[in-house]
């Protein structure tokens, strides 16, 4: 007897070692992942509050449980028990569906994350991973893109201005940063020669991709923060501008599910970062050398994996405690005009390197030729004369009244708009009138 999802996949080509689990093991793994994620969420909330408090020279929660560790549990209980408020002009079905859509995919992503190598569970040898496919990483992308629907629909169905704005922002944000994210993965695919998570982890046995593909890793780190709507990119729920963004009209359990989704997504993208760039469940270097890789076998890797994930979560907290929120247009500009072009250029370089390796070029030769190319480009750039605008004798641009007698027309070349200059000096004439009124 096989589970339904595996039935769907069974005719497709498979990753060796997967798809042979007995049904009870699949069930066991699923439940374990679910519990793990819930626990991680509880932990992360306290972790974040404590860490941010330390950064701000406070103590943080310290009443509930030993050192306040049960604070998040108490908060969760409180949220569940709170009154459910449903505003009058919401789109009821979508309003209720949205948090579910947000939360469910968040749990699904962990299905393809390898938590460890093969272990023995009740006498059955099985990898510490629910399932894997040749397109596992793309599957992650697919599931994540479904999760966004929760945010967008939640924003729309609330029937209110701020949530809608939050929803729109989130749409644009996710679409934009998904591109950079996907591009940062391409380099990994090129090196690993696979899109299966377990095989990518295997391919990092010698060296982590975070080292080899540092630019990709950097792009991924940035875009993963954008993907999860976390500070400094938490624009869909920017408190200062949109109250609470798409969550403004939500309360009680539904609010909690959004909250849950956000924290699980944080863990998800961190886990992906660990899998794709930080060697997955492999022990970091000095430890991995001990005992001929003893710490890379058995249940040990689970420890390394969780440690790495929690480290990345700390990066999230750190960013939140350090950086102010970025302005929306700056955020979009950064994504489209910096991250994506950089990723594209870097993929070109990676592809060229891969090709060179495949063609059998020596690493030394590549370095020499690459260095020579860069040096030549630098020298050539010295030859190009620096162009300085010659301002001497240049007539000041003629001023033109753009709105004279009706429709505004754009200034001709060489003209400068009077209104534009006034605008620059007095940015908001209308606002001022409003103030004087």
């Amino acid at each position: 007897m096989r589970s339904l999802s595996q039935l769907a996949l069974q005719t497709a080509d498979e990753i060796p070692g997967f798809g042979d689990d007995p049904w009870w093991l699949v069930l066991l793994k699923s439940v374990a992942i679910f519990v793990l994620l819930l626990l991680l969420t509880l932990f992360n909330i306290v972790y974040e509050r404590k860490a941010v408090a330390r950064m701000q020279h406070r103590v943080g929660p310290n009443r509930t449980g030993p050192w306040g560790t049960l604070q998040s549990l108490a908060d969760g209980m409180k949220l569940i028990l709170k009154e459910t408020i449903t505003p009058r002009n919401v789109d009821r079905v979508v309003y209720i569906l949205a948090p579910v859509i947000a939360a469910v995919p968040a749990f699904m992503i962990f299905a393809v994350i390898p938590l460890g190598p093969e272990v023995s569970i009740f006498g059955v040898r099985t990898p510490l991973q629910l399932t894997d496919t040749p397109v596992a990483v793309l599957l992650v992308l697919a599931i994540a893109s479904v999760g966004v629907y929760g945010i967008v629909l939640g924003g729309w169905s609330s029937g209110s201005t701020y949530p809608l704005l939050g929803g729109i922002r989130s749409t644009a944000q996710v679409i934009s940063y998904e591109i950079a994210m996907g591009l940062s993965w391409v380099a990994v695919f090129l090196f690993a020669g696979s899109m299966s998570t377990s095989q990518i982890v295997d391919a990092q046995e010698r060296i982590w991709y975070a080292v080899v593909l540092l630019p990709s890793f950097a792009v991924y780190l940035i875009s993963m923060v954008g993907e999860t709507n976390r500070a400094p990119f938490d624009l869909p729920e920017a408190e200062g501008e949109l109250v609470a963004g798409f969550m403004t009209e939500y309360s009680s359990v539904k609010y909690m599910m959004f909250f849950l989704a956000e924290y699980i997504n944080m863990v998800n993208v961190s886990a992906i970062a660990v899998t794709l760039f930080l060697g997955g469940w492999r022990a970091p270097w000095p430890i991995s050398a001990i005992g001929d890789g003893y710490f890379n076998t058995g249940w040990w890797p689970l420890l390394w994996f969780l440690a790495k994930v929690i480290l990345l979560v700390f990066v999230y907290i750190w960013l939140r405690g350090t950086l102010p929120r970025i302005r929306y247009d700056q955020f979009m500009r950064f994504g489209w005009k910096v991250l994506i072009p950089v990723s594209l250029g870097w993929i070109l370089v990676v592809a060229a390197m891969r090709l060179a390796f495949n063609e059998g070029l020596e690493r030394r030769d590549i370095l020499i030729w690459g260095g020579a190319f860069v040096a030549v480009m630098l020298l050539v750039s010295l030859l190009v004369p620096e162009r300085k605008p010659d301002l001497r004798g240049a007539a000041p641009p003629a001023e033109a009244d753009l709105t004279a007698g009706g429709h505004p027309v754009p200034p001709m070349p060489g003209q400068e708009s009077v209104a534009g200059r006034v605008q620059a000096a007095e940015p908001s004439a209308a606002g001022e009138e409003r103030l004087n009124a």
Partner: protein
Amino acid sequence: MFAQAVEAAGHTGEAVVFWSTAPIAVLSALGLVVARKAVHGAMFVAVTMICLAILYFSLEAPFLGVVQIVVYTGAIMMLFLFVIMLIGVDVSDSRVETIRGQRVAAVLAGIGFGLLLVAVAANALVSEAAGMAAAQPEGNVAAIADRIFSRHVWVFEVTSALLITAALGAMVLTYRERLFRRPSQRELAVARFRRGGTAASPLPSPGVYARHNAVDTPALLPDGTPSELSISPVLVARGTVRPAEQEAAQIEQLEQQVVELTGEPLDESTRERP
């Protein structure tokens, strides 16, 4: 024996998947046609597409299945939602048909055409599926990549050119020329402080009376007059501002009700007189 069992299991599995997803796909497709709101329609389409993705998996095309979700559900439908939200959330279609006879003709033509197609598809002499095993010995992804980058590489390049052209076209279409230079944040800040007065601080928030979310109600100043500054000028222009006096009157009414019910006069110190 074992192979046959696997085969049979595969078939039943596929049939289960098909017969559980296909009705959902059809129903949500119908949902698109009948949905009143465009957002609902978009959601229905997204469901259909996810169903199709699952069917692709069972048709031994996992790459296409994932791409279906990423591209259609994740990008294209998201773009649709984005545009729907941009150009009017409340736009729900009126159901009155304006073209005479269009609805009847369309339904008739649709049913007729559909029956025809189904008849063709059902009666076509279709052989048993050959399966993809022979076509993708090194896996689905490798097979597709091999085909795209060898036999169809020209098509691939052309479609990439098409994509770039489309992106440029969309930018050109939606581009709005800026008549004036946009004031920078710094200039705005400088101008605000130079103007002096209360402008340096943020504008006051709208009035909140714990009765509704009330961006449309002006805040009351200590002397009881409503503050125009607390209301977005957009709302003023639309004429959807709730007058402050009315609020104040209602509050007084409430107070009186409270006094009548409880029989105790309100504590003067807690009262905010308008």
